[in-house]
């Protein structure tokens, strides 16, 4: 694990993303350094999810570049980027409901080639979430919200990501589960995985982050160390998109 403030892991440079005629992201610059935990905040329709989709290559930007591990991956496929070390816990978890927990985890390791690594990966995920080992043959769609969140995180960790993207990890969870979820996020982060967390729950997200960005209607309105943002007068305003 490198020291914060070291090499850049992910950099978005001058990103413009459109859906048809609609300009979603405007000249977005964003960086995640190795081992860093970064929060991306913003209200509804501020472009947070689009930012993640642009990073993953599910949406192609019209202008600008996406750099990952020193490589320009802008024109590359999602599966290439994931092979290079990205993983995502999508909004609403998006588990494969009619498949078992085990199969969901296997899908997270889809691009891992060597069979030996996979056993370790399972062990690592089961150590983090012992419950998943018990439930491994249960259909993912039958789990409770909190359990599903664990599967979603476990699934993302199966591929040994360098950068873990999280889209609204607190959404739809009871407050106690939100706290638990953030504890796990910290735990994973401490194991050396860099993270970009998209959240509406600004306080929670900033309390564990190194740095933060605030988006409002597709534009960055604030950025800085998490501690400073937490105290920032404009945060609330920006966050609400006014």
């Amino acid at each position, binding site marked *: 694990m490198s020291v914060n403030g070291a090499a850049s892991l992910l950099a978005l440079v001058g990103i413009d993303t459109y859906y048809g005629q609609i300009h979603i992201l405007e000249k977005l610059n964003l960086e995640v350094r190795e081992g860093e935990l970064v929060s991306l905040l913003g209200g509804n329709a501020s472009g947070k999810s689009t930012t993640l989709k642009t990073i*993953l290559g*599910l949406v192609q930007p019209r202008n600008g570049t996406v750099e990952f591990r020193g490589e320009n991956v802008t024109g590359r*496929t*999602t*599966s290439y980027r*994931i*092979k290079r070390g990205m993983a*995502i816990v*999508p909004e*609403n978890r*998006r*588990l*494969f*409901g*009619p*498949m078992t927990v085990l*199969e969901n985890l*296997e*899908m*997270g390791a*889809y*691009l891992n080639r060597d069979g030996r690594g996979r056993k370790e990966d399972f062990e690592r995920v089961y150590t983090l979430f012992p419950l998943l080992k018990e439930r491994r043959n249960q259909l993912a769609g039958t789990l409770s919200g909190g359990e599903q969140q664990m599967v979603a995180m476990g*699934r993302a960790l199966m*591929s040994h990501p360098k950068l873990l993207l999280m889209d609204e990890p607190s959404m739809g969870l009871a407050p106690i589960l939100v706290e638990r979820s953030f504890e796990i996020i910290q735990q994973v982060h401490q194991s050396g995985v860099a993270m970009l967390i998209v959240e509406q729950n600004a306080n929670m997200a900033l309390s564990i982050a190194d740095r933060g960005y605030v988006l409002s209607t597709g534009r960055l309105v604030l950025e800085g160390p998490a501690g400073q943002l937490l105290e920032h007068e404009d945060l609330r305003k920006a966050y609400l998109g006014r």
Partner: protein
Amino acid sequence: MNWSLFWDLTVSGLTLGSVYALIALGYTMVYGILKLLNFAHGDVYMIGAFMGWFALHWLGGPVNPSATAWLVVVLMFLFAMVACGGLGVAIERFAYRPLRNAPRIAPLISALGVSFFLQNSALLLFGASFRDYDTFHLIGAKTYNYKDIFLSVPQLLTIVSAIGLMIGLTLLVARTKIGKAMRATSFDREAASMMGIDVDRVIASTFFIGSALAGAAGVMFALVFGQIYHFMGFLAGLKGFTAAVIGGIGSIPGAMLGGLLVGLAESYATGYLPQGSTFQNLYVFALLILIILIRPSGLLGKADVKKV
């Protein structure tokens, strides 16, 4: 009760049902993954029957085959399956993929277009006359029997190889990496791509497998029932589609069950119902309507549950 007639009808129904089941599988797999009714599927089946015919004639024809009959039949199946698999992949690539994000009606129209394209290409290239595998010369008229149940060699071959293919498909979908990727993609395509699954490749594989099964079905039909012609895919495709809907479209075991039911219903209707040999299709589609009225999502289909 005339048991001998009953068993004859049952055997012929199971044979026909095997063919329909294999066609229905292609419909249901493509629907499961793309929510597309691939109306060109019946014509892929027709092409499969022709490919089997060509393989047979490249291998010396039914009267003087250049290898033993069994090997010839295996090669006919392999050739038809690979050719149809490739055709299916090409159809997806050129007729459906460009419309992946278009409104759902667009690929449906495209599928109808491909159907006409294949029918008329076959008419142009292969001519309008009927062709025959001449199974009599190739594998003889030997039948096996258990008491009153008589099975000809092609019938036995069809039923056994269809069961084999269905078991193979079930294992593939349940156990293999590509099978799991297919299930994941069919449940949530975007989430699948978020896992690094190459969705385009998974969809292409689905078309390959579904079309290869249709190709096998085409050869089976021709082995048992003889004649092949450019328009044979229309009705068989409709029956396969009916089978898929009866079983619950999107459900693989449903397609198998639906296929057998349609085959048996058609066969029993021919033997037992008034004017059955003329109106068997009336009875088959009446069965479809009846089942859909009682269970709108098909026998093994699930009612669409909205994803949360």
